[in-house]
């Protein structure tokens, strides 16, 4: 699905197809109305859906439903052109930012009149903010190409006009004005000269926009940079001649969601609701590859290759966020030493581990870790943004910690910085030295947070993923991938035995050896092959597990238990009564030190660098993990196996 960043707000999760039904359903549950509205607003909504949601909100208002936990916010809108769709867009989008928005609009073409009149619709309900959304057509900009004096007069007149509205609002309701600057129409009459010849529309608009920045200095009023938004999406996309001509829409309807989100970010910032802390995953988020498996020389960062450059670009953006006061934290599934290694020793890393206030690298679930980070920094979860390339982790944190913002990330890291920027979680109204110091106040020692209670119901989450696990023996078609896993896996690898493709081929056809390749799919996607097991006959009725490895990407999902159950089925079918597992310690696989005891094996022998464990098959009962199991292609089907 091709989702455009600025049209679809693709950092938000896609809206379910039955949105209309979900809207209707909120009206049937008055007790949770506010919470449900906020949840619906959290999806990516196009203009039509925003308008549908605004209607639902209006219905709830009419029925006097309780909107908590949404906080009430009153604003007014002064615009030229059609305002109703903007009003609806704002009301619906405000719920995404935790606000129950009330928005009055000035009459059509009544911008100045309604501002001047003390009891007009825009002042009546004591708004906190008045959005002055006038576009270039509303301002007295006379075109005088080549006449610099007249052009200057034009620009001043336009700015004076805006000032008089601002003054009237201040006098009549004391509200803060959010003043929109001008998006220039793409039609020019010269070409490059339009930009530099005084009195062309382009030059006049540039003059108004820079003049507006000056006029707002030393004022509590806020600049709303519509020019910036329009430039980002393209002036030719922003301005739609048809939509203005037929319906007086000042910008293309398809950009209503973006426009509304930007306004609401500023409203939320007004209330101190902007986020303050960015929690980052490491593998494939800050560098390409997995440090625990690929090692310092195997990860991609900088080094002049496309992937490495993309991650360097993202690191640069993260550093820029830190420099303006955003607090950074790490949350990674890794051995801590492995996780810190690139920061300490890789020459192309831009971030250093000292840039982070908290550094969580362990094998526990990320929701519990993020809660621990929040507790350590004494910040509420609503201050947090969590960025991770893995949809499993993103969905888990969204479910367990709904207050944390978790953007959908694109597949290509080249777009990470742009996506995080577009999401606009850290909108601010002012900036001071205090802000630059804040990140260092929190950081400096990259501390480790102590984990508390587990956050949320992990089992329920796992069950909701609709996982499907598939077991097959080694096959020629899978040989390359099996060999790859065998040779690449270092962390979740009990014995780290390496086999060439030729040796794997021999294992395929060796009837005395039991082989297993494991694939995992869930509703978020297909993980492909994620585990390999090889069992060899030892004494009669004993299987020794020669190889058991797994991709770290699927840790914490009870895959190990599912694999054990599959092994037990096949072992029983072949008259095996005991499984023997061996752990050969390396400097990379500390992770699986307790793998066998965790699965119920008993210790048989322990040495410095190895341990041997055994499981009596008859007495073992591994509980069924929450996934659908498919077992196929085995020579003798295990009794009770499903295919």
């Amino acid at each position: 699905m091709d989702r455009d960043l600025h049209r679809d707000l693709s950092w938000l999760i896609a809206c379910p197809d039955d949105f209309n039904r979900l809207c209707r359903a909120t009206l049937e549950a008055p007790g949770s109305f506010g919470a449900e509205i906020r949840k619906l607003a959290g999806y990516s909504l196009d203009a039509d859906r925003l308008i549908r949601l605004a209607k639902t909100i209006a219905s709830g208002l009419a029925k006097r439903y309780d909107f908590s936990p949404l906080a009430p916010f009153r604003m007014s809108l002064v615009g030229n052109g059609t305002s109703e769709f903007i009003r609806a867009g704002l009301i619906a989008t405000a719920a995404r930012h935790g606000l129950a928005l009330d928005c009055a609009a000035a009459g059509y073409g009544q911008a100045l009149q309604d501002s001047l009149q003390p009891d007009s619709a825009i002042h009546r309900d004591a708004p906190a903010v008045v959005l002055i959304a006038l576009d270039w057509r509303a301002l007295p900009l006379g075109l005088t190409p080549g006449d610099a004096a007249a052009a200057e007069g034009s620009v001043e007149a336009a700015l004076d006009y805006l000032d008089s509205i601002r003054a009237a609002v201040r006098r009549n309701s004391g509200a803060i004005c959010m003043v929109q600057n001008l998006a220039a129409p793409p039609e020019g009459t010269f070409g490059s000269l339009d930009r530099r010849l005084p009195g062309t529309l382009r030059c006049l608009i540039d003059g108004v926009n820079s003049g507006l920045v000056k006029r707002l200095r030393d004022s509590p009023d806020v600049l709303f940079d519509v020019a910036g938004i329009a430039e980002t999406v393209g002036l030719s996309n922003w301005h739609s001649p048809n939509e203005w001509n037929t319906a007086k829409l000042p910008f293309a309807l398809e950009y209503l969601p973006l426009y509304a989100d930007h306004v609401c970010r500023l409203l939320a910032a007004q209330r101190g609701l902007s986020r303050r802390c960015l929690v980052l995953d490491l593998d494939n988020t800050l560098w390409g590859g997995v440090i625990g498996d690929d090692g310092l020389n195997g990860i991609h960062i900088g080094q002049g290759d496309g992937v490495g450059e993309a991650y360097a670009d993202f690191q640069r953006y993260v550093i820029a966020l830190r420099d303006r006061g955003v607090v950074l934290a790490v949350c990674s599934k890794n051995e801590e030493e492995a996780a810190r290694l690139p920061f300490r020793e890789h020459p192309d890393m831009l971030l250093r581990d000292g840039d982070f206030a908290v550094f969580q690298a362990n094998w526990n679930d990320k929701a519990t870790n993020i809660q621990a980070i929040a507790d350590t920094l004494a910040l509420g979860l609503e201050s947090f943004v969590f960025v991770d390339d893995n949809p499993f982790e993103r969905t888990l944190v969204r479910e367990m910690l709904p207050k944390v913002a978790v953007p959908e990330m694109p597949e290509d890291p080249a777009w990470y910085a742009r996506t995080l920027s577009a999401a606009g979680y850290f909108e601010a109204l002012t900036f001071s030295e205090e802000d630059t110091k804040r990140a260092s106040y929190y950081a400096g020692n990259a501390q480790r947070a102590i984990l508390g209670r587990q956050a949320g119901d992990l089992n329920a989450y796992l069950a909701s993923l609709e996982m499907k696990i598939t077991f097959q023996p080694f096959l020629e078609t899978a040989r390359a991938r099996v060999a790859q896993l065998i040779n690449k896996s270092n962390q979740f690898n009990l014995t780290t035995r390496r086999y060439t493709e030729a040796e794997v081929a021999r294992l395929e056809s060796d009837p005395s050896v039991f082989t297993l390749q494991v694939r995992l799919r869930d509703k978020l996607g297909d993980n492909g092959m994620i585990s390999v097991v090889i069992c060899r006959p030892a004494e009669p009725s004993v299987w020794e597990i020669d190889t058991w490895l797994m991709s770290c990407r699927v840790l914490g999902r009870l895959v190990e238990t599912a694999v054990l159950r599959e092994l037990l089925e096949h072992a029983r079918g072949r008259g095996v009564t005991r499984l023997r597992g061996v752990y050969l310690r390396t400097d990379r696989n500390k992770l699986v030190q307790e793998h066998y005891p965790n699965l119920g094996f008993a210790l048989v022998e322990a040495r410095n660098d190895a341990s041997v464990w055994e499981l009596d098959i008859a007495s073992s009962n591994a509980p069924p993990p929450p996934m659908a199991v498919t077992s196929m292609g085995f020579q003798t089907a295990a009794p009770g196996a499903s295919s």
Partner: protein
Amino acid sequence: MYNVKFNPGSDMISNDQCQTILGDLFQDFFDDDTLVLRPDMTARDVDGWDSLAHVRLLLAIERKFHIRFSAPEVGGLQSVGDLLTLIAHKTEAGSMK
């Protein structure tokens, strides 16, 4: 609700299919499962079909059928029947008209 799948821009569609797809769209747009299109239907007959809704509806139709309306074409529409005729004309032979 019907669920007709077609490839806009490359499939030729019959008037019947056109009416079905448009009927689907109207039901979703006006959030009314009971809405049934008639050729003589006008904006007055449908709750919520005001001028803003009219613009949004036409944009939604453009997106759905991968067509573009021109201002004169839109200006000439008096009824749902006119709309159906216009859509059918523009989706003929899959060309962008």
